[in-house]
Every structure is written in C-alpha cells, then in structure tokens.
C-alpha cells in the first residue's frame, strides 16, 4: 500500500458537519483517540467544529461502525481508517 495513504485518515462530514466541507484528510503517524482527532480537526477547522462535535446528538462513525460515545476513550483511530461525523437519524 502507498505509505501516503497509509498515514492518512479520511474524515467525512454529513448533515450539520457539511459546513466544514464534504471531507478532510489528516496525516497521522500513530493511532489517535477521538479526542485527539477532534483536537487536530479543531486546529484546521476552528473551534466551532469542536463545539458541534461535542453536542450530544453528534454521531461518530469509524469505518463502518457507529462508536458508542460513552466508550469513546477505548477507541483508537489508526492511519488508513475512515471517520465520519454525522447526526443519527431514525426512520421516516
């Protein structure tokens, strides 16, 4: 695999996070927590991103799994992973 891709995390933005674009690429050398990822994103996207991400109805998705916010500290994001920030919606 291309080492450039391997060291990147692709972050996708859905719903209210679209104000930060459709997606964003971050280069990381080692695994990071969501807290650390949000800190890195805050640096490039501004403090409003952190505020939006910390709202109780914001949902974090790592690859194809929604992350339980209560167990967020147990989750590590590795280089090559895909992350998405969204609002979780029910049926309709």
């Amino acid at each position, binding site marked *: 695999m291309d080492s450039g891709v391997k060291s990147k995390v692709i972050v996708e933005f859905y719903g209210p996070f679209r104000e930060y674009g459709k997606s964003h690429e971050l280069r990381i050398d080692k695994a990071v927590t969501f807290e650390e990822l949000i800190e890195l994103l805050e640096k490039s996207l501004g403090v409003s991103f952190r505020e939006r991400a910390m709202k109780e109805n914001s949902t974090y998705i790592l690859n194809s799994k929604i992350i339980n916010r209560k167990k967020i500290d147990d989750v590590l994001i590795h280089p090559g992973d895909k992350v998405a920030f969204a609002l979780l919606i029910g*049926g309709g």
Partner: protein
Amino acid sequence: MKGYAGKFLRVNLSTGEMKTESLSEEWARKFLGGYGFVASTLYNEIPEGTDPLSPENVLCLWTGPVAGTIIPVSSKYIMGALSPATGFIGFGIASGGVGSELKAAGFDGIVISGKAPSPSYLYIQNGHAELRDASNLWGKSTWDTEEMIREELSDDEIRVSSIGPAGELLSCLANVTNDRNRQVGRSGMGAVMGSKNLKAIAIRGTGDVEVANLDELLEFCKDLYKRCRGPATEKYRVYGTPANVLVHNRLGCLPSYNFQKGTFEQAEAVSGETMLATMVKKIVACPACPIACDHINVVKEGPWTGTVASMDYESLELLGPNCGVADLNAITKAVELCDKLGVDTISAGVTISWAMEAYEKGLLTKDDCDGLDLRFGNGEALVEAVERLCLREGKLGQLIADGCARAAEKLGKDSYKFAMVNKKLEWGAYSLRSLQTATLGFATSVRGACYLRSGSYQVDVKGTVDRYHLDKSRGKIVYDGENLYAIIDSLIICKFTRGIYKDNDELAKVIRLVTGFDVSAKEMIKTGERIHNQAKLFNVRFGARREHDYPPPRAFEERMYDDVNDGAIILKEEYDEALSGYYKARRWNKEGIPTKALLEELDLDTSLGV
C-alpha cells in the same frame, strides 16, 4: 371521559345507515386508542374467511386520546382493515390534521362496513354525518379530490382522506392520502376504500377536547415543546429523514439494486444533504407540531419541471438507490405520481426494483415491459413504470400493480427468491444482512415487513449489538420495542417525538394528565403487550404461523458484497434461534401462537390460544 370524544360513528355503506355509538370507558382503558382500537375492532368484527375486498371487510379509523390536545405532534389517526396485501391485519398511521379534526368534530373514530351502491364520500361535520355522491370525483387524483371537495362544500378548512385511481382499481399497494402529502401507507387500505366505493372521508370540526388535568398538562407541554426544539429532533427539523442516506451508506446498510448491496456508489447525489442544497423548497409541519419534518422538493429543470413532492428517507431510498437511480428529479417525479395516484412509495419502489432485477436477469423482456428499458438506474423508465403500476396499465402495470410477491407468483422462474417481502408486504429501506436485529423485527411484524412496529433497527445502527449476527437475546429487544411502540401508536403521538420523553414514566404521565386514568409506566407497557397480542390473535385467526415470520430467501441464500460488506449473510440457524427467542419473550408457542395463560393474564379472548 377525558381526552376522548366519548363516541364513534358506525356507517353501513350498503344501507346508508349511520349511527353514533358510545365509547366504553372499560374498552378505552383496556386498549387506549389508535392501534389498540383498530386491533380490537377488527378482531371483534371480522370473521375468519372474510374476503378483504368484500363488503364484509370492516374499515375503521381511530384517533387516540391525545388527538386534538396540546401534546406535541398528536394530530394523527390510524386506519385499519383486513389487508388485501397480506391477508392479515392491515393498518397505517397518517400525520396531518385529519385525526385532530375528527376529534374536534365529536368522534373518536369511524367504523365502516358494507359497500356503497355508487361512488360516494362521507362528510362529517360537528357530530353530523352524510354520504354524498362522488361520481364526479371517481378517477381523480388525491390532490384534485381534496380540492374539489373543499370547493363543493365551500370550506377551505375541511380535512380530506381520499384514494386515487390505484385505490379505485383495487391495487394491493393503494394507500390513502390526506393533506396532499400525508398517507395511510402500507397494506392496501386504499384498495379497501375502493372496494367499498368510498372515494373519500371529509371532516370539519370546531369542538374542543377536554383533558383531565389542564393546568399540569399545560406546564408539562411547555417543557415538551422546548425539548421538541432541542437536540433530540434537530435531525428531523433541519435535514429530514433523507439525511439517513449517507450514514446508512457508510454503515453498509443502504439497500441498492433490489437489496443486492448495502452501499450505493452515487449516494452523495441522492443524499439528504444534496437534496437540501438543491431541491428543498419548503419545510412543512403538521398541526401542533413544533418540529416540522416534511421536506417539500420542487423539480426546477428538465422534463419534470414543476413536480412537487414531499420526500422522506424511505421513498427516496427505495425509488432511488434501491432502483439504482441517482437522479433526484426522477425520484421526486416518481414520489409525486405515487402520492397523486394513491400508491405506497415503499411498496412501489421495492416492486419496481424487483421488476428491474427480473429484467436484468432476462426473466422479463422489453416486450413484457411495454417497450421500457427497465434496467437499474434508468430514471425515465422508473417514472414510466410507477405510472403504469399505479394505473394498472399495459403488460407491466398488470404484472406489478399488486406488488412484487404477487408479480413473482405470476412470473414464476424462481423470481420469488428476490421478491423482498414478508407476509407479501414489501421490505422497508434497511438492508437485511447488515442489520439483522432489524430483520427479525421486520419479519415478525404483524402487518408484514415493517420498520415502524419495534424500531429494532436502532440497536443495529447504533452498534449496541453485533448487527451481523443473531442470537436468542434479540427477541427480547424486539418484544420491548413492540410493546412501547404499541403505546405510541395507540396514543397516537409522532415517533419523531419519542426522544423528547425522558422515560416511560413521562409517557404514562401523558396518559394520566389527558385521560385521568391512573396508569403507571409498568401498567402502560402491559397495555402495549395486550394490544400487540390482540393484533397477533387477529393474524392467528387468518392462519399466521411461524412460516410467516421469516425474511425473503435472499437473506439466507446470497452473500452481500459491496464497499463495506464482505460476504454478509444471515445464518438460518441463528435466525431460527432468534425467532424462538422472540416467541419465548412473547410467551407464544413454537408456531408463534399466544398461550391461553398469557391471554387470560392480558384479559383477551382465549379461544385461539394454545
């Protein structure tokens, strides 16, 4: 009685006889309203062997005790009958203003039997009812019917529930429309109205609803309305349910190509985000609703310029990605046709995706499709096919007008294997193999493949359970969801407000403040269990057994590969175990029939129990 109007209207369309009957308090305490009243009415009044499209079928509309009060988003009503689509209990709950209008007109519900000698509509105004000639309305769209009735009666405030041509043509997919964009969907209630020559029900009411404890209810509602404008409903207010598209795509549970895959390569093009930026013209609310979730799309260019349709996730998904279509204009046109001609968008989408798969597999030829190139992704063909389905037009329309299960029976050639149904009702927009608790909930639903009976998809989507496997513990999750949703659907409040109630105690508080019934949360849930069992008993009368509680063959026989899923499949032995776990939680036997002991405990008729 507080909360209730205390009476309902009984109509015999064959004789034209109409009478007002009192609502028994004992019955209201036992079945609460809405869904509970439908389940009990149908069980009491429809004998075994009844033909769903005969005059002997009973069609009923019920409100719940909160209709017409200030409880947020409480203006709904439910319509039920023996379903021509499934042969089991059929019902749908509609938003809009019909429910609160009926209560204001002095009735909790309407129970209709017989068949009118000629096209008619029922007009109810403040305690009075009359049958009126509808021959000038026959053949008209639902939208035209609403307007023509208001014009005829010179009253713009009249609320109308009506069928379109599909209901008149007795399509099993026919729904009932009110307030233009709100439907009693699923299970063919429009065909039941059509079979009775009943084109519409028009209602005008100006009365009040008395509640048990107004001061405390006002205080409580102040808080509820604040919560309705808070984070729990932001998703519905701003983006509407179409915002599900990208999330579900990322999770690999967005059905595409007739449920063959769980992702769609053009998801961005049909996402709620794209729709909001390019097509949404207006966001509309129901009466007493501070949320406003109804996103109205307008087509601004191309052959369907000027098309207007309300778009929710299910309609968008099943007429879009599930048909391989990424053209929002075509999808909006398809939804508008369904709404105006009176067909359920979920069933239409799944039926056409079935036809597209049959076409691509060579089981249907271009000639069978009246010259349409019915391949996946062809938006123009989608629109044409929807119109033919709604109007039963041509060879294709004749084949698919009653849904994909019946179409597969006609076509043969193993095409039933990819007819995505349970109890002959088309599956909702949730992938079976990557949301397996949801699949159990859909397949055990009393009205057929239904996402609204238990909300069981939530534990899968939120990652609370391993969504790629099943075990016996999932049955209890479905059981709990069904009992709670039976209460929500009997009150009737909008499911989008379920997040504003902190717990079941707060829902029980709603019942106490509105009706004065001294009900605890535990007793309320027991009522939910009673209601669900009453609906199940109706199905048992019409032959429901374990074999009816399975998903379609594709779930077990084909592995799913896409950008997220690498061979996802439901293991038959795991599903069997989960289904048995569900029956155990419900205290039903191995065939899914309630035990006499349970029925006695729930104070239900024990004659069909085991």
